């Protein structure tokens, strides 16, 4: 029953949500299922927080690699939860202060490190080894130049219109609007078909990985 009940719930809920598009009478039932979903997912956040706590607690207890980092993680989790629930999260509260002056700069800093690693990776990996790699390299350089004002800074105001195709701005727009959009659309359609097929497999009980099965 541990397997059958979740499969029946997934089938019934999924079929009602699909049929709702075609059968207006099912709209109120579908709306009710959506409300339940919002309640369930709110509890899933609690489960997620509990899981994070459990994994990091075990890491500290068993002295696994990098266990000291788990201490500030657990301390932060409790501190933010207690401060937020106890004194609120609106503007001017301690929670807001901690968010603005701790979480905000720390998260932004970690993300900003990406610029350094991108530069290093580009230096080591972006080589014109083959025709494909050369095309990718040239497209990347043109887009990088076209994306920033300095790319077109060298173009004088008297630059003739018939030579506009030589400016990084123009080339970047063509790469993005034609080649990129065509590729992205193909990926989008492919991924959407994949979603439809996976959804059908879940509804029919063929795909059961969400139950923890292989």
């Amino acid at each position, binding site marked *: 029953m541990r397997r059958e009940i979740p499969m029946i719930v997934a089938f019934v809920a999924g079929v009602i949500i699909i049929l709702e598009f075609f059968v207006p009478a099912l709209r109120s039932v579908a709306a009710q299922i959506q*409300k339940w979903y919002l309640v369930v*997912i709110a509890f899933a*956040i609690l489960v997620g927080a509990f899981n994070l706590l459990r994994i990091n607690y075990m890491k500290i207890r068993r002295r696994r690699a990098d266990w000291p980092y788990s201490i500030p993680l657990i301390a932060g989790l409790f501190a933010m939860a207690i401060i937020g629930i106890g004194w609120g*999260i609106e503007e001017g509260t301690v929670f807001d202060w901690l968010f603005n002056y701790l979480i905000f700069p720390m998260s932004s800093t970690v993300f900003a490190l990406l610029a350094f690693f991108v*530069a290093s990776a580009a230096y080591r990996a972006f080589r014109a080894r083959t025709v494909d790699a050369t095309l990718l390299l040239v497209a990347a350089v043109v887009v990088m130049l076209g994306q*920033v*004002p*300095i790319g077109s800074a060298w173009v004088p105001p008297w630059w003739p219109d018939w030579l506009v195709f030589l400016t990084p701005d123009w080339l970047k*727009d063509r790469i993005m609007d034609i080649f990129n959009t065509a590729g992205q659309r193909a990926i989008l359609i492919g991924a959407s078909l994949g979603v439809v097929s996976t959804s059908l497999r879940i509804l029919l009980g063929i795909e059961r990985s969400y139950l923890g099965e292989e």
Partner: protein
Amino acid sequence: MKFVRWLADIDRRIIFLVIAVAVVIPLIFPLGMRVKVTPQTESIYKEVENLPPGSNVLVAFDYDPAAAPEVHPMALAFLRHCFTKKHKVIIMALWPQGAQMAVSAMADVGKEYDLVYGRDYVNLGYKPGGDIVIKSLGASFPEVFPADMAGEPTAGLPILAKVRNLKDIDLVMDLSAGDPGIPAWVRVANALYQRRVAGGCTAVSAPQFFPYLQTGQLVGLLGGLKGAAEYETVLAYAGKASRRMDAQSIAHLVIILFIIFANISYFILRRQREEKREGPRTGPVASA
């Protein structure tokens, strides 16, 4: 040749140092380069301009502090534009830290205008559930958000008095750094409820939304810091994004130079390797 070899195996700390200098110097000494406004930014500007004053604009803060250097400046610029045009701004978030990002944005923008909470804007806070939250908003706003971010009931707020569901929203602006984000708003708010949806996202994710622009499912798109700087330019306002674009310009240029140098050293060394393999050239060999 020693130099070429050094160039090929350059210590990455040197690359880090050069990038740091390339970013820091333009931040200290701005170059003031002019940012060209793209049509996808201009169309968002026109959309906000053409709405009658008092229109309901829903701004979804679907990002966290990690993406803030790129996305937050566009939030500030967009909010400024909405409040200048006297639109009503309804804020919500599908990302846990999004609601707090909105608090931070309103702390910056709010003091420039004579705004009353609940009348001119409201922060409904975070709601988990992605697509289903948006779909539920299509049925009823008060049922999805019975209370605002501070836990106060939304029932008595004047700004929501005439907002029953998504159909009462004139424009949706999703500021997104991933999933749930722009695709969810396009799928549900635009495709299902025919709402006008605009988007703002990190530069790295912008290319994937171009098909939505071409089909008209997205009114416009602000891509990365450049998008934010373009919106500031079109508003004739020199904000954080415009100032940071100089640093990004120089950083891009430095990365391009790195790529060029790396390829020059690669080709020189490859040619050297090939020559070694083939042996020294001694001129044409006379046939016996």
